[in-house]
């Protein structure tokens, strides 16, 4: 199984159980609380001003996403991973509808 395959499987399983919104909301709240969102905003503004607004939005995204990933604090990332694993194991334990 490829790594991309894991993402799709998890996503499809969460969609079946209507848990995608809850998980994404949980992650968003944690990132806002730790100040990651504001840091990413400032970084985006700086990059857009330096490169004069970027002609394409894709260019901006290509530059911003790796920096945004790196900005996530390790403690917050660990906590989120732990919580996500618990959620996935609990979903697996739920009886499947036939």
């Amino acid at each position, binding site marked *: 199984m490829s790594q991309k395959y894991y993402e799709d499987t998890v996503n499809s*399983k969460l969609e079946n159980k209507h848990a995608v919104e809850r998980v994404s909301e949980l992650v968003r709240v944690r990132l806002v609380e730790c100040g990651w969102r504001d840091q990413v905003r400032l970084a985006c503004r700086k990059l857009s001003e330096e490169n004069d607004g*970027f002609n394409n939005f894709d260019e901006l995204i290509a530059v911003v*996403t790796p920096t945004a990933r790196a900005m996530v604090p390790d403690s917050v990332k660990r906590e989120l991973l732990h919580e996500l694993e618990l959620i996935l194991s609990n979903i697996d334990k739920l009886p499947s509808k036939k």
Partner: protein
Amino acid sequence: MSRNQNVLSNIDREFHDIVSSKELLRQAAERYLDKIIDTITIGIALGIHRSKKAKVLDSEKEVTPKEEGPRPCVDIFGPYNFKKKYECLCCNCDRIVEASGFAPHLEVCMGMGRSRSRNASRRIANNSRERENSTYGSIPSDDEDDMDWNSGDKRKRKKDRNGNKKLKSTPKKINEVDPVETINIDVEGEADDILNLRDLLQDFSRGPSPADSVSSSGSTKRRDKSKSKKRKDRSSPNSSLNLN
């Protein structure tokens, strides 16, 4: 339905395999978390890109709120001590007027106000009197319209001069008598409102006083009775003639 069921069952099997293995579970969780972070980042970048394009970015640099002394009184509708001035330009006199007072200004400016209408009616009455007194009958008029106007005004002259002598008027002049009656009873005088106004103004200009008005009302009441009697008298001979 069978295809969907097969797909769902496959997904469940694979998911179970992932969760059962710790390493696979960790990798899957990590990749899924990165995917969520990327979607959030795209949302933030899109907002900034849009604001930059709309040139709103400069206003957002002030993140810290400024504390400039005591804040003005604020209501749910906004600061209620703040008076928003909406100014309008008057098309008639080209003045800038406040919106709250624009309607009364227009009323005065365009000549629709009460005082102006009273002044205008007084001027009309004064002008008509001046014309009558000065050179009204002496100037010969070539136009037929002027002659008609002259004849009409002559009748009015007779009214003004006769004043109290209206009781002795002929049956044709009943209409002329009506304005006096309308002071007390307004049933028959609806067609002569303009004439009534002029007469009133002239009467008041001669020397109005409450005593006079009371006496005049009393006299008019007496006149009414006399008029009603005279009307009956007038009607009776005709009826007698018809019978015969």
